[in-house]
C-alpha cells in the first residue's frame, strides 16, 4: 500500500480500552494508530454538549474501577484525570429516605434510624468487602489462562492463583464462594434487614446485566462493582471533572504523548486477513492502513462476526461467539435542568444532591422493573442510579443550571416490536414519571431531555445489543471464558489479530484493565 504510513499496530475503536492499549504500546516504543468511527473519542466514555451549554455524560457517568497502576503508568492525572468524590448515596422513599455519606458516624446514625442491627452490620460489611476486593485483585490482574490446553506460563499463573487462594482465611473463602454463586438479594439478606438498604446495595448487582437482584449470579456483579478503589478506599465512586469523556481524553493525550496517532471519523469496515494473518484494516471510505498487528477494542460480536470473515475462524469458536450473551438491559436519560431537583423527602438544597441518588426503595421495585423487561417491555417504574454532575463540577452546565444523569434499568434491547421514536419517548416519560414521584418539581425544570435506548447505544456507540459491559458479567463468561474458552488471553484464532475491549477479562466498566493487560500480553509475545 504505497504512500500509506506503516504502523506497528492499528487499534480499531477509540474507546477507553483501545486508547489505553495504544498508550501502553506507544510507551513500549511501538508506532500505533487508533481509528475511531465517531467524531469524538471515548466510545461509551464520552462527554457531549447535547444541548447548548449543557454537557452530558451520554453513557457511562461514574468512575471507580479505573486501575491505579494504569493512572500512574500512563500519567493520567498529568493529562487531565481528576476524580471528584461522590460522597453519598440517597435512597428516596415515600415519606422518608435513607442516606449513606462519607462520614461513618453520620451513616451509622442514619442507618440506625431504620435498623440498629443494620447500622452495626454495615460497619463490618465495608471492611469485609474491602478484604474480598483485595483477595480477588490477583484474579483480575492475571491474564486469563487457557483452561483447555494450558501453556507452561498458564500453569504457573494458575499455580500462583492457587497459592493465593490457599492463603485466604476460611471466612474470606466463604464470602468469595457466596459472592460467586448467590443472588445479591440472598447475599445481602444474610447481613441486613432494612429493605431499602438491601435493595439499594443489591442494585450494584444488576447494573448492566439482564438479571434481577434475586437472580443467582447477581452477587458477582455486585462484587465486580466493589473491586474498585479510589486512593486506597474501596468501593469509593468518583465523578471525573468534565465527565467520563475527560477520562478518555486524558488517556488519548497520554497515548499521543507516547507517540500514538489517533484519527476520528475513520470507520473501519474490516480487518484485512491474508493467509490467516491480520495485515491491516480497510476503512469504509476505501482507505487502507497496514500494520504488523491489529487490535480490536470492539465487543466480541463486532470483533469476530463483523470485522473479519467467519470463514477465517474455527467453526466452534464462531459458535461460542454467537452464543456469547450480550443482551442490553439499560438505558440512559440525561436531563438539562433549569434549577435543582427538589426532593419531597429532603426538600431544598443540601449535601444529599452531591452523591448518587438511587431509585431502589425495595426488592419488589427492582424485581417488578425486571419483570417488565423479561416480557419484552421497558420498566414502567424503573430502577435508577442518578447523579447531578453540575453540582460536583459547575462547568458541566451554565451558572445556576444543572445536568442530571439517570442510568435506567430495565430497557431491554429486544423490546416487543423493536425500539422506535415513540417507544423511546414513552420510555423517557416512564423515567420522568417515576422521578416525579420523589421529585415533584422535575417536570417544571426540564429544559431538554436526551433518551438513550439500548438500540441507540448500538447504532451510535457500536455496543452490540446496547450492552454496556460488552457482554454479560455472568460466571460462564468470565476469566478464562471471556469471551470464549482458549481465546481469553487477548489473542484470537487469527494470527496478529488481538482483542482489548470490555468483552475480554476482566470485563466492563471504566477500568483500563483489558486495554492494559492486552497491551502487556501483546508486548510479551511480540517478535
Amino acid at each position, binding site marked *: 500500500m504505497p504512500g500509506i504510513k506503516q504502523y506497528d499496530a492499528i487499534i480499531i475503536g477509540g474507546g477507553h480500552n483501545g486508547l489505553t492499549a495504544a498508550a501502553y504500546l506507544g510507551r513500549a516504543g511501538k508506532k500505533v494508530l487508533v481509528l475511531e468511527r465517531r467524531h469524538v473519542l471515548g466510545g461509551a466514555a464520552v462527554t457531549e454538549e447535547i444541548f447548548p451549554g449543557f454537557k452530558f455524560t451520554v453513557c457511562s457517568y461514574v468512575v471507580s474501577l479505573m486501575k*491505579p*497502576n494504569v*493512572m*500512574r503508568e500512563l500519567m*493520567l*492525572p*498529568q493529562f487531565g*484525570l*481528576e*476524580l*471528584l*468524590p461522590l*460522597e453519598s448515596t440517597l435512597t428516596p422513599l415515600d415519606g422518608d429516605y435513607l442516606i449513606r*455519606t*462519607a*462520614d461513618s*458516624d*453520620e451513616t451509622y446514625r442514619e442507618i440506625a434510624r431504620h435498623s440498629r442491627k443494620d447500622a452495626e452490620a454495615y460497619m463490618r460489611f465495608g471492611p469485609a468487602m*474491602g478484604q474480598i476486593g*483485595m483477595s480477588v485483585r490477583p484474579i483480575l490482574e492475571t491474564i486469563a489462562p487457557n483452561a483447555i490446553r494450558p501453556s507452561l506460563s498458564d500453569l504457573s499463573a494458575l499455580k500462583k492463583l492457587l497459592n493465593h487462594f490457599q492463603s485466604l482465611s476460611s471466612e474470606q473463602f466463604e464470602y468469595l464462594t457466596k459472592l460467586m454463586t448467590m443472588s445479591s438479594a440472598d447475599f445481602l439478606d444474610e447481613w441486613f434487614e432494612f429493605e431499602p438498604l438491601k435493595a439499594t446495595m443489591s442494585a450494584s448487582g444488576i447494573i448492566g446485566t439482564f438479571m434481577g437482584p434475586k437472580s443467582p449470579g447477581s452477587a458477582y456483579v455486585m462484587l465486580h462493582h466493589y473491586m474498585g*478503589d479510589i*486512593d*486506597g478506599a*474501596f468501593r469509593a465512586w468518583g465523578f471525573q*471533572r468534565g465527565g467520563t469523556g475527560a477520562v478518555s481524553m486524558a488517556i488519548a493525550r497520554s497515548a499521543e504523548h507516547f507517540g500514538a496517532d489517533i484519527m476520528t471519523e475513520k470507520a473501519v469496515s474490516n480487518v484485512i486477513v491474508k493467509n490467516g494473518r491480520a495485515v491491516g484494516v480497510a476503512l469504509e471510505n476505501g482507505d487502507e492502513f497496514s500494520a504488523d498487528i491489529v487490535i480490536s477494542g470492539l465487543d466480541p460480536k463486532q470483533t469476530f462476526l463483523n470485522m473479519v470473515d467467519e470463514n477465517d475462524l474455527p467453526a466452534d469458536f464462531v459458535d461460542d461467539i454467537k452464543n456469547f450473551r450480550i443482551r442490553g438491559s439499560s438505558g440512559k436519560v440525561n436531563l438539562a435542568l433549569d434549577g435543582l431537583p427538589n426532593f419531597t423527602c429532603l426538600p431544598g438544597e443540601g*449535601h444529599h444532591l*452531591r452523591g448518587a441518588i438511587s431509585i431502589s426503595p425495595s426488592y419488589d421495585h427492582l424485581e417488578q422493573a425486571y419483570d417488565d423487561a423479561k416480557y419484552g417491555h421497558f420498566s414502567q417504574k424503573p430502577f435508577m442510579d442518578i447523579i447531578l454532575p453540575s*453540582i*460536583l*463540577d*459547575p*462547568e458541566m452546565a451554565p*451558572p*445556576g*443550571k444543572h445536568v442530571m444523569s439517570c442510568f435506567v434499568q430495565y430497557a431491554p434491547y429486544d423490546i416487543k416490536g423493536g425500539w422506535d421514536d415513540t417507544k423511546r419517548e414513552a420510555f423517557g416519560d416512564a423515567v420522568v414519571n417515576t422521578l416525579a414521584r420523589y421529585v415533584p418539581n422535575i417536570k417544571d425544570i426540564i429544559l431538554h431531555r436526551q433518551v438513550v435506548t439500548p438500540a441507540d447505544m448500538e447504532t451510535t456507540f457500536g455496543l452490540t445489543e446496547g450492552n454496556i459491559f460488552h457482554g454479560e458479567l455472568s460466571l460462564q463468561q468470565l476469566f478464562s471464558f471471556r469471551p470464549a474458552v482458549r481465546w481469553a488471553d487477548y489473542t484470537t484464532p487469527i494470527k496478529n489479530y488481538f482483542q482489548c475491549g470490555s468483552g475480554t477479562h476482566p470485563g466492563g466498566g471504566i477500568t483500563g484493565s483489558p486495554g492494559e493487560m492486552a497491551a502487556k500480553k501483546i508486548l510479551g509475545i511480540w517478535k
Partner: protein
Amino acid sequence: MSSSKRFAAETQLNLSPFFERTSKLNESQEWRRWSGYLSATNYELTHENEYFAIRTKAALLDITPLYKYIVEGPDAQAFLDRLVTRNINICKVGQVMYTPWCDEDGKQIDDGTVQRLTQDRFRITSAEPNLEWINHNAAGMDVTISDDSKSTASLALQGPTSRDILNACAQDSLDTLKFFWMMDTQFSDIPVSISRTGYTGDLGYEIWMKPDDALAVWDLLLEKGKPFGITPTGLHALDMARIEAGLILLDVDYISARHAIIESRKSSPFELGLGWAVKLKKKDFIGKKALEAEKSRKPEWKFVGLEIEWDPFEKLHRKAGLPPGLPCTAWRTSTPIYNGKKQVGYATSGTWSPILKRYIALAHVKSEYAKENTQLHFELKVEHFRKLSPARVVKTPFFDPERKRSCPV
C-alpha cells in the same frame, strides 16, 4: 435546627468579623487556632468537598488571622526594600510581591506579601507578629508603621470559578487582573481591594475590606457564588493544597530566626527554596552580607519536593495484609529521610494528593542529595513498625495549572 444541636461557648480566642457566619456554617465544629483566632478546620464532617472546591469550583476561606501592617511615608519604598530580600524598588503601584525577610545573619524571620497600595503606602502580611522587628529597623526613616491586623478583614477565594464569582460581584471586571497584581473596586457600594494572590497554587484571589463590611461581603459572595459552586473551606483542605503548590508554612516547614532557640533551627531563604526571591544585586538589605557569603560557599541544606514511590509503598502495606495507608489529610510531623542507612534530611509536611494521585512531601535535605530524581528513603510506620520506603526528589510545585497565571483576555 433544634436548640440542642446548637453550639455556643465562651472563648478567650479572637473571633474574626466573619465568625457570625462561619460559626453557623461549621457543621463539624472543628476549629484550629490560627494566630490566636478560632479558625475553621473543616466546615463539613469531612474535608474532601472543600479540597476539591479549591481545584474544581471556588473555595472561600477566612484569612483574617494573617498579620498585616501598613507602611507609609516618603521612605516607605526604601525602607521595605531594606527590610525584605526582594527588590521593592521595581514594585509598581497595584503590584504585589511575595518575599521572605531575614535577620542580619541571613536567617529567615518570616515570609509574606508586600502590596503597593499607592506610591508611598504599602501593606505587608506575615505569619507571625512582626511589628517590633519592623519598627526596630525603621529607625531614622521617614515612615509610619501601623498594625493593620484588626483593621482589615480578608477572605481568600480560590479555585477555577473564583474569577466568575468576582465578576458577578464587583463593579469592575477582573478579567485583566494579572497574577500578583491587585485592584480597588466595589461590591455594590462596599469598597474592596482584590489581589490575585493565594496559598493554593490555583487561580485565586484575596479580598481585603473593612471589618464593618465583612458580613455584607461574605453574604454577597455566597449569594453570587452559588451557581459557581462557592464552598466555605477550612484549613484541612488549604493545607493539602498549599503542599501541592509547594508553598512553605512558618512553624511547620521552618522556624523564624527570631524564635529559634538553637542555631541549627534557623534557615536561610536559600535553604527554603526561596533563593529566587533573594536579590543580591540590590544595594543593601538586612542579611545581604551573610546571604552573599552563604551563596558563594553553597547552602548546606535545600528544601525539596519528594514523591513517595507507589509500588514499594503498596508492597510494604500488602505484606502486612493492609491496603496502602494513605494520609487523607496533610501531616506536619518531622519525618526522617535517609540515603542508605544515613539520615540526610527530614520531611516537614506531606499529604496524599487526590488530584495528582501521588503521595507528596516537602523536605529539608543536605544539598548533595537535593538533585532532581535523587533516590532517597522515607521513614514510615506500617502497623506500628518503622519501614523505609523509596522516595524521589521531584520538582515543585507538584501541581501548577496554567489557569493560575493566565488571563481570559
